[in-house]
């Protein structure tokens, strides 16, 4: 019995280590970001990773508006084109496309244009590989 324990315990330890390395990697999960401008507050839900993604936006107050998102990477001097968001219910919008082209710290600009004018609200996120 003790012999088995000498073998099984290290085996379990090694299996746990391999599992942690394989499953516990740095894959980014969905992130919820909050920002507030002079007239609007915004909540952004997305998976911060390069490539195509979907950003779900909640704008308060939920007045009719044209909404778009873009991203800036200040460290690299890099900006991405605006992605137009389509309505998905009162105050809710969805934007799809490529927002980040590489890993690093990015600023997301949410542009909200309504009858009072345009406002850009910025939130920051860390984009993983």
């Amino acid at each position, binding site marked *: 019995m*003790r*012999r*088995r324990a*000498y*073998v099984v315990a*290290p*085996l379990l330890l*090694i299996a746990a280590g391999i599992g942690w390395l394989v499953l516990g990697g740095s894959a980014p999960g969905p992130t919820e970001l909050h920002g507030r401008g002079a007239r609007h507050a915004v909540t952004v839900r997305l998976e911060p990773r*390069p490539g195509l993604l979907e950003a779900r936006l909640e704008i308060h107050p939920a007045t009719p508006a044209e909404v778009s998102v*873009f991203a800036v990477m200040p460290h*690299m*001097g*890099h*900006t*991405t*084109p*605006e992605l137009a968001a389509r309505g998905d219910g009162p105050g809710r919008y969805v934007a799809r496309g490529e927002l980040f*082209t*590489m*890993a*690093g710290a990015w600023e997301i600009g949410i*542009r909200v244009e309504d009858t009072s004018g*345009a406002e850009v609200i910025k939130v920051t996120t860390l984009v993983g590989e």
Partner: protein
Amino acid sequence: MIKRLTLALLALAVLLAWASPAAAHGRFAEADARFAQTIAGMELTVVVRASVRVPAPLQVDVVAHDPGRGGPVELAVRSIEDGASSAASVRIEAGRPGMYPAVLHAGRAGPHQLEVRAGGERSVLPFTLLVPRAPLWEVIVYAAFACAAVALIGALVGAALRRGAVAAGSAGTFAVALVVAFTTGALSPWFTPEGAPDPETLTRPNAQPLVEVTPGRPALGAAFRLRVTLFDGSTGGPADDLAEHHAALTHLVVTSDDGRFFRHVHPIRIATGVYEVGLRAEQPGRHRAYAEFERTGAGGQLVSGAFTVDDVDDRGPAGVSAAVPAGAAPVTEPARPVAGRPVRLTFDTGVTALRPWLGMAGHLIVRSQDSGYLGHVHEARSMADATAVRVPDESVARYGPRLEFVFSFPRPGRYLAWIQYVRDYRIVTVPHVIEVAAEGSTR
């Protein structure tokens, strides 16, 4: 059953012990040092290849983007610490852009000077010859992990063979080795070498330029020299701590007010804080020179100065004049750019296998019509490559045909733009004019 499992476990432990140190050597060596130089009428990039050890041969490649009239280029590397030097030369052939390799000798790591001579001009470029070497704490960590692996094997064997003393001794060694490895790893941030640049300390003062041309008012069609001398904004002394920034110490853009004249060149360093380039006056009137550089441990800076080429410009206002290569014109999206909002500018070069220049697949220089603003935008798809340890090499042709730039024009108005990329080692410049509207404007 137990024996089989023991054997399998031993094999796995040996495998892990073997794989760990090997991974330590899987990282890249330090990056190459690159210096774009406009010298003797040639546009060159001098690449000092990374060394894996010293003393050893030092590979230096001269990439001729514009060979001009060609001629010999003398290269010399000198150690600042012991004065040892090594020299070699390459002969650039007129009409043959491409890579010209040379082999010098590096005796030791540390601060060096690279001297480039051609056509009576001499540039002295400081750089640090780095040799990748694992720091002591890393060696300790990996050695401790290796000891732990061996001790683990010993403990298992001892237990399986009912050798209590061996098992206990090995288990103790295993525990001690793990403690040493993790403790050293946790303390490693305190062991980083002194002098390593800290990106958070962007504390250098500004640098201010003195832009001079010789002669003072170049005649139309005549050659002249443009000199940029940089002074520290706080001490008044020369600012001579420029870092390699996008493969050059200084990027100099010279444009005439009407945009008909455009040069993106890389002045040679002729003395402490003094950068100089030879040009030919091709357009009359006022010109502006913009120098873009980065001081070591600081962010990028842009300084500018003006000079005038004698003659009367009777050709009226215009945009830019350089011939547009065959292919589609650049396309902006949205078609009517609005100030303050990102604009995507794409250009179909019509060819694949474009080579990187200054670390990027393409460059977009934009200037407001009044010369008050100058922007330098990098090709969007190649920007991630530029952050890699090894930046894209000039010899690898893998970009194109489409180049994409994204930029927010700061103010409404007319902007003169120049897209630059490298095809078959030659620099291609595509001029373009972009009208930017104000937000809400219907015009």
